[in-house]
């Protein structure tokens, strides 16, 4: 086999090996460089994979040469190539950004461990994205989760520890639910391979075992993607983790969980079973609506900006779930688009906040009055990300909102349009609150003498901010790939 054919495995193995390498070498700058290089490699690999599957073909990679359905298979199609692209791009970008931010927030002797942890998180996420085996998904899920608990706990505030612990407890319960679900499916079909499951499930889909398995899987994944009301771990985890971790997790972790849900619904169980028989939309849509409205409302009243953005993420995940709940090709396209675009938006916003933490040491809104005078570029990037969050035309956020509302109108669910409009207007409120304080209030005396963020933080932040505008104007990559991926999903289901 040529090395190009090994790309799927390399995508996972590269970060997996780099992590212990970081710890062994033990020098924090070198560890950082290893991280940057690894993730650059990861990004190039994902671009290569996307090119390989662009025509619609599916790569099936046998790990260790053991053939599926008994061996573990890595299965790459347009859907997960697209998701891997955004995850790896953000992982690389975050590592480029990380150096100064990590210096400010984490003790020097712990930094190699931190970088190793981040690499492991990425390895786990890549694994979930690429695997074609249900149990393997659980394993990678736990790899990324455990590493996340560790890196979240490294925040300066001691509440990072309790946040990580709470996440650990809830996350383990969620992962164990997924394990139960997989177990039930295995009981009834005798296989763990996703393609094989898809072929064998229809015969036994009427049994309560399979239905219970579906329920456990859905709830477990729902916890991982912070669906209301299983989102309680998210606000504290994002708020108190180190800024770099907030950026990375906000942009990638829940997205991969959404991907897993899509994979389970469409490639394992199938549209027929999920929506016609089990009526998952009755669960997804109401909870998504509640998520959008209640999370946005709570965000309005937060004074800690990171926590505000965390609640905002819960609302945005609600949008993604709405797209799935609409259960049409347009709806899932909207979900995929928003998956990509939201990563860009939240990435830019959290990166800007990370720069603020570096210079000011706090993200409490009342302490940031008039900061726009001292850090105009950083907060300018924040404004761009905020406009994308609201959904102003010519930004990425507008494109995903457009598709979502079109999907809702297409399905005849006009009241969803009302909810989306309310969500956007609430986003205007909580975002504009920040812009007003930061740009239009007289500067807080304590901020005198603060300087703009360093280049190494500013450039990546603006890179993401500009990406928001780029993908709001030239959507050929995002919409084209999303539509093709969804087309394949709806065509392949049994």
């Amino acid at each position: 086999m040529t090395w190009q054919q090994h790309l799927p495995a390399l995508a996972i193995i590269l970060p997996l090996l780099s992590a212990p390498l970081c710890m062994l070498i033990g020098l924090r700058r070198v560890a950082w460089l290893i991280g940057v290089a690894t993730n650059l490699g990861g990004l190039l690999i994902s671009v290569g994979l996307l090119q390989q599957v662009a025509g619609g073909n599916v790569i099936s990679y046998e790990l260790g040469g053991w053939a599926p359905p008994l061996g573990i298979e890595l299965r790459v199609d347009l859907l997960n190539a697209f998701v891997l692209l955004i995850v790896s791009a953000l992982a690389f970008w975050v590592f480029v950004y990380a150096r100064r931010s990590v210096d400010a927030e984490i003790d020097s002797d712990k930094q190699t461990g931190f970088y190793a942890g981040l690499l492991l998180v990425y390895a786990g996420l890549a694994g979930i994205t690429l695997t074609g085996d249900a149990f393997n998904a659980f394993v990678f899920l736990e790899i990324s989760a455990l590493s996340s608990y560790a890196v979240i706990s490294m925040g300066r505030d001691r509440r990072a520890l309790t946040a990580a612990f709470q996440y650990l407890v809830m996350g383990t319960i969620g992962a164990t639910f997924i394990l139960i679900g997989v177990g039930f499916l295995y009981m009834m079909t005798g296989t763990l391979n996703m393609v094989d499951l898809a072929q064998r499930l229809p015969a036994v889909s009427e049994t309560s075992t399979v239905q219970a398995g579906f329920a456990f899987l859905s709830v477990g994944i729902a916890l991982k993607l912070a669906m209301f009301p299983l989102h309680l771990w998210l606000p504290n985890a994002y708020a108190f983790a180190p800024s770099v971790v907030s950026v990375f997790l906000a942009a990638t972790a829940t997205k991969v969980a959404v991907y897993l849900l899509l994979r389970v619904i469409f490639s394992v169980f199938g549209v027929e079973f999920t929506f016609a028989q089990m009526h998952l939309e009755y669960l997804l849509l109401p909870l998504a609506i509640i998520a959008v409205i209640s999370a946005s409302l709570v965000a309005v009243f937060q004074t800690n900006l990171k926590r505000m953005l965390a609640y905002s993420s819960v609302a945005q995940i609600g949008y993604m779930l709405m797209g799935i709940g609409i259960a049409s090709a347009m709806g899932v396209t909207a979900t995929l688009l928003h998956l990509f675009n939201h990563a860009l938006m939240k990435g830019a916003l959290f990166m800007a906040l990370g720069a603020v933490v570096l210079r000011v040491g706090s993200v409490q809104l009342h302490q940031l009055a008039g900061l726009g005078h001292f850090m105009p570029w950083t907060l300018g990037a924040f404004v761009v990300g905020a406009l994308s969050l609201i959904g102003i035309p010519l930004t990425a956020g507008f494109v995903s909102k457009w598709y979502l509302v079109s999907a809702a109108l297409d399905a005849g669910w006009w009241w969803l349009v009302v909810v989306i409009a309310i969500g956007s207007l609430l986003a205007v409120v909580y975002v504009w609150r920040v812009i007003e304080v930061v740009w239009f209030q007289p500067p807080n005396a304590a901020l005198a003498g603060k300087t703009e963020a360093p280049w190494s933080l500013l450039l990546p932040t603006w890179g993401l901010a500009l990406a928001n505008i780029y993908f709001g104007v030239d959507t050929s990559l995002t919409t084209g790939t999303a539509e093709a991926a969804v087309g394949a999903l709806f065509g392949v289901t049994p």
Partner: protein
Amino acid sequence: MIDTLTGLFNYWVAVILMMTGLYVVVAQNNLVKKLVGLGLFQASIFIFYISIGKVAGGAPPIIEPGVELYSNPLPHVLILTAIVVGVATTAVGLSLVVRISESYGSVEENDINQADRLAELETGDDQA
């Protein structure tokens, strides 16, 4: 009735352990005990998995000449992986508890939340 109890014995054990574990996680104040409950919860799943691998009349899955029917080895393998995951989870959890204990001086959830709330009132940071 008896059939249901004895025939589905392994499921009953799994369910009772699972619920006990979950209850401990939710109801216990002490962080270490929460982790114990979590471990109990995970253990129930392990038992469940292994028990469904048993084939009636099957021998342990070790190749031996003369044996025709083996129990399913796959669940055993899966659970070995899951046990390792569980061990890692417990390890991470306990190390977090150690750090929490150093930082807060207590591993009781009530005390920790109280301390947080007091600190937030002082600094003006917002509530959870």
